[in-house]
């Protein structure tokens, strides 16, 4: 059904259509509308889920862990300080191999208080074992949320999935999007290690150094196995519902001499910058990274690379730029832009390409 709404609403509607059994909810700007909408769905009866109003984000993930451990489908949403507050439970949920799905409205961390878009919150969860997908339109927020359940619950994966959408820029923008009837696109959940009263076992017991690493290695196996599952899921989604997604999205890259790489809404707006640059005679292209974990290294083929990070790792650099450099050997022009909702326009992005100096870092607003 074609409809019109915010990124938050699209996530909530996808959750409704995926039919989780337990939703844990704690409000935080700018994701609050997601849990409000879900509360409405539960109240009006369009979603038959248990809605647990927890007292903190640490507890929202804890409640999802408890529910998912019994083998039911779960969802929660958070942002920024909420995400880092639940950090411990991020490790616990992935380590317990529970296919929890969570939306994160990307937002800066304090101090000072700032509710604008920034990826530092989710990037700091990089090593927890969660899959991370970054979306760039309201439609993609809906689609990626639906697909997240199928990917997380796949028995080759059994890892939680986080859908990241830029705070305000995407959570609060109103756009056209189409909902679907998922049918059996998301098969019934069948967690093989769900708690079984008739076959009691210990979960997460003391695990000494001669076995702990095996469980860690298994998480990585699940992470690697997720790549073909993501590809298959996106292909099946396209076959059923007609909308195409890839591990990363290329725009006018075929003959490009320089590519801009970014995640989230900047990854969409940069297409306009590419068009402007092409009109000027610069053969530019764009690669929008969708999956940050598992990390998918795009084909760069010796092109100049301009990476825009809406995040920063202090003492290191832009995280996306650094990871791309490490994995592909490219020497990116690393631009740090958009922190805390800093306004970045397509003109600004085009300018990043014009002033690029491979192998250097550029803080937008500082180094101008």
């Amino acid at each position, binding site marked *: 059904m074609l409809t019109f709404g915010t990124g938050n609403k699209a996530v909530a509607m996808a959750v409704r259509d995926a039919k989780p059994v337990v939703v844990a909810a704690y409000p935080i700007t700018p994701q609050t509308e997601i849990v409000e909408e879900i509360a409405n769905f539960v109240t009006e009866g369009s979603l038959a889920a248990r809605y647990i109003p927890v007292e903190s984000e640490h507890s929202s993930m804890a409640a999802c862990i408890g529910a998912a451990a019994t083998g039911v489908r779960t969802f929660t949403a958070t942002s920024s300080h909420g995400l880092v507050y639940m950090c411990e439970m991020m490790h616990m949920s992935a380590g317990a191999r529970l296919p929890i799905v969570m939306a994160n409205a990307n937002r800066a961390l304090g101090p000072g208080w700032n509710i604008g878009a920034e990826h530092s919150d989710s990037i700091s969860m990089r090593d927890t074992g969660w899959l991370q997908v970054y979306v760039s*339109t309201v439609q993609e927020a809906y689609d990626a949320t639906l697909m997240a359940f199928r990917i997380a619950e796949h028995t080759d994966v059994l890892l939680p999935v986080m859908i990241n959408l830029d705070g305000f820029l995407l959570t609060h*923008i109103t756009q056209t999007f189409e909902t679907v009837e998922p049918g059996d696109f998301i098969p019934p959940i069948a967690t093989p290690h769900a708690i079984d009263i008739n076959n009691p076992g210990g979960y997460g017991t003391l695990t000494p150094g001669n076995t702990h690493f095996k469980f860690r290695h298994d998480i990585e196996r699940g992470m690697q196995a997720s790549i073909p599952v993501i590809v298959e899921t996106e292909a099946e989604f396209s076959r059923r519902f007609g909308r195409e997604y890839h591990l990363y999205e290329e725009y006018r890259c075929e003959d490009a001499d320089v590519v801009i790489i970014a995640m989230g809404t900047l990854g969409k707006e940069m297409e306009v910058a590419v068009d402007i640059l092409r009109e000027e005679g610069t053969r530019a292209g764009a690669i929008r990274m969708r999956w940050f974990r598992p990390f998918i290294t795009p084909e760069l083929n010796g092109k100049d690379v301009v990476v825009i990070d809406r995040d920063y790792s202090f003492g290191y650099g832009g995280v996306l730029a650094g990871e791309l450099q490490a994995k592909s050997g490219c020497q990116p022009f690393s631009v740090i832009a958009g922190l805390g909702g800093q*306004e970045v326009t*397509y003109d600004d992005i085009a300018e990043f390409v014009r002033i690029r100096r491979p192998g250097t870092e550029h803080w937008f607003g500082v180094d101008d």
Partner: protein
Amino acid sequence: MFEIRLHSRGGQGGVTAAKLIAYAAFLDGKYATATPLYGAERRGAPVVSFIRIDDEPIRIYSQIRNPDLVIVLDESIMQLVDVLNGIKPEGKVFINSQGGTEVEGHQTYPVDLTSISLSLDLVLAGNPILNTPLIGAIAKMGIISQDSAKQVIAETFRDERNVEAALRAYEELKI
């Protein structure tokens, strides 16, 4: 692409108005986006919302710097904010005005939305409802169709007086 910047005060319904205009454009078969620019939300503080309407999917998330239309829901904001900042040379201005304010150099459309609402007793939490008459006025300007304007109001507001408010604003706006 047609770009609208809407200036209002917190509590006036500017954010909702932007959504409703974009929704009407969506019903017209266009691509449309509405984005509120959030700061610290306080009732009475100046608020800005952006609306983009196009025949192609919209890929831009940044703010509108060169609007085709500026909507001012509270005339007094013009003393605090440069509402005309970046407006295109041919850009138009809509002002909710009791005194028929005109802006020099730009086609101006003053309509007294506040009086229309108050005369119909359309008041929410102490504030006159400006959304519905605004939609009527915007339809008169040809930015959205009459049919979509009616549908948006019917879907969003149960009270029949909202339709009446839209009709009055439609009548009062002079092309």
